[in-house]
């Protein structure tokens, strides 16, 4: 399923259509959008080197460019200053121009990594992305992909409409073949998440096995309640098809040192996992073993419907007149008990109320005999 996303990003959109765009949504409890981005980055890079795609502009806000270059190197993709298939726009190191460096704002000249010292100027950012892409593929019809590691910082420094405008402008540009970014939905209002979803053709979200209840106020509490399922969950992808249909696909994810691992959903395991995660973590056993579960299922409860073909009669302790006719020998309990014992059917509770002689709806006031 993740391959479906990657293929759409690699192939890009058709001519005359806006570029496909992917939003990767994470939460405080499932903060693994970086892993998904790195997965897509590695695959896109491999496809570019294999000649199936042309170029990639990586805009970094949450991690340094060296982090991604080191990551790619670890995946066997070596990036050097002479690489012509990738450009990195560094909006991480000095986004507000605090560091004293002799720079006019964006590093001039062709280079692998360009520093951007004014992330709030989105027009300039847009131009920088396009210029970086054209450095790789030229001004013609050849297209390149754009990856933004996180829009959280963008949204801190610029308003939602401006950020939305930037992403739409990138999608609309003739030379941008595809675009993806990540967002932490707990950090923003719902309208921001919705606005970004509107301009996406694909939305991927990471849902932990222990879903949090509504309300961002509980996000922190849920992080500390995640227990053993932290790092696992479901990866949902929503594809918006051209005709208006929506296709949703889901997989299970598990995150480790190497990154995110995706696998088909195992429904039984996920239900059991979700159930297990609700049990508080204590140092004594609250669960049943398999043997105990089997023995428990064998126990016949005393008032359980036995389904022997007879209608169920629930004895409430009072015998009706009808019961008096049908039950021939209710008082001969000894004989009845003997029958029960000889038949070997097991225990039976026989109860005779003291007040059996009274009619249920007697008009007599039981307190009449009190001398008040």
């Amino acid at each position: 399923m993740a391959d479906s996303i990657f293929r759409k990003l690699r192939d890009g959109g058709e001519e005359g259509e806006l570029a496909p765009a992917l939003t990767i949504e994470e939460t405080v409890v499932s903060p693994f959008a970086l892993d998904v981005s790195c997965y897509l980055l590695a695959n896109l890079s491999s496809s570019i080197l294999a000649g199936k795609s042309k170029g990639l502009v990586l805009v970094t806000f949450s991690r340094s460019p060296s982090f991604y270059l080191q990551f790619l190197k670890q995946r066997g993709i070596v990036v050097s200053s002479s690489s012509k298939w990738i450009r990195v726009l560094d909006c991480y190191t000095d986004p507000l121009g605090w560091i004293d460096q002799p720079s006019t704002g964006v590093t001039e000249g062709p280079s692998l990594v360009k520093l951007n010292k004014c992330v709030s100027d989105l027009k300039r950012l847009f131009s920088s992305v396009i210029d970086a892409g054209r450095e790789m593929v030229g001004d013609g019809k050849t297209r390149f992909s754009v990856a933004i590691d996180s829009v959280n910082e963008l949204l801190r420094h610029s308003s939602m409409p401006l950020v939305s405008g930037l992403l739409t402008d990138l999608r609309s540009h003739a030379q941008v073949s595809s675009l993806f970014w990540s967002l932490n939905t707990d950090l923003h209002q719902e309208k921001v998440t919705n606005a970004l979803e509107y301009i996406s053709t694909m939305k991927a979200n990471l849902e932990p096995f222990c879903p949090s209840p509504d309300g961002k106020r509980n996000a922190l509490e849920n992080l500390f309640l995640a227990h053993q399922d932290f790092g696992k969950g479901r990866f949902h992808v929503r594809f918006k098809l051209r005709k208006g249909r929506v296709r949703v696909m889901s997989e299970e994810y598990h995150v480790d040192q190497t990154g995110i691992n995706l696998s088909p959903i195992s429904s039984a395991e996920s239900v059991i996992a979700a159930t297990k995660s609700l049990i508080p973590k204590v140092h004594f056993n609250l669960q049943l073993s398999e043997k105990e579960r089997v023995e428990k299922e064998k126990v016949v409860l005393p008032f359980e419907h036995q389904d022997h073909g007879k209608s169920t009669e629930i004895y409430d302790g009072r015998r009706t007149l009808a019961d008096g006719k049908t039950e021939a020998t209710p008082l001969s309990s000894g004989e009845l008990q003997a029958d029960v014992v000889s038949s070997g059917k097991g225990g039976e509770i026989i109860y005779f109320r003291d007040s059996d002689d009274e009619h249920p709806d007697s008009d007599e006031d039981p307190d009449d005999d009190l001398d008040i």
Partner: protein
Amino acid sequence: MDRSVNLLDLALGLDEPSPLRGKVVLIEDCVETSGSFVLHQMMKRVLSPHSSDSLIFLAFARPFSHYDRVLRKLGCNLSTQKTNNRLVFVDMLMMKCSDNESGVAKLFREIQGTVGKLRSVTNSNITVMVDDMSLLEIAATNSNSDHVLDFLHYCHTLTSESNCSLVTLNHEDIYSSMERPAYLLQMVCLADIVIKAEPLASGLANDVHGQLTVVNKGMISSKSGKGSSRNKLQNFQFRIKENGIEYFYPGCSRN
């Protein structure tokens, strides 16, 4: 004794070499249970005679004498460490920081300069500690949380560019209004390790002073080789003694 590893050390991965290098640690506490002891424990670890790590401490909450007194009881002499240039103590109570963006920018540049100087003489880990973020917000930014987050972002760049560690303490319960949860969550998202100090659900007790929950998120490893523990969550209780802290699992006998 100093090399003994307790539950907090294990949760932080301190049994591995340089586990906090390049990482951000956030300590959250509340009125009922102060998390300062965690900060003191980490100070002691950083300035341990068995390591050559350095510490840059931004003190907004208390003067040097307070920390000196506390760490002495834990077996660490801060004055000696200052003399040895292993400790750079920045007393923000005495410093006046202008309450706008340029104030925090200047503060960051000073920290960056100090890191550069230390890095020129040692390749060991450099830890930047802030006690505490809420007071930084008041003193340096006039309660502008955006400036605080900008400052944190720039400190985060030190963890990747200069391979430093960043440890901050923040009070979770002073941001109770609906408008502020995102600010807390931003800090949680930035952190690789979150340590939450809170009281027991059953209330005060003589022999158990609270519980710690440590979430070690880690991140995808961009470096080859052994990786530290990732996506681990641990919960245990603690008791603050005169000259140390005892950590134990609920219901277990303490050593």
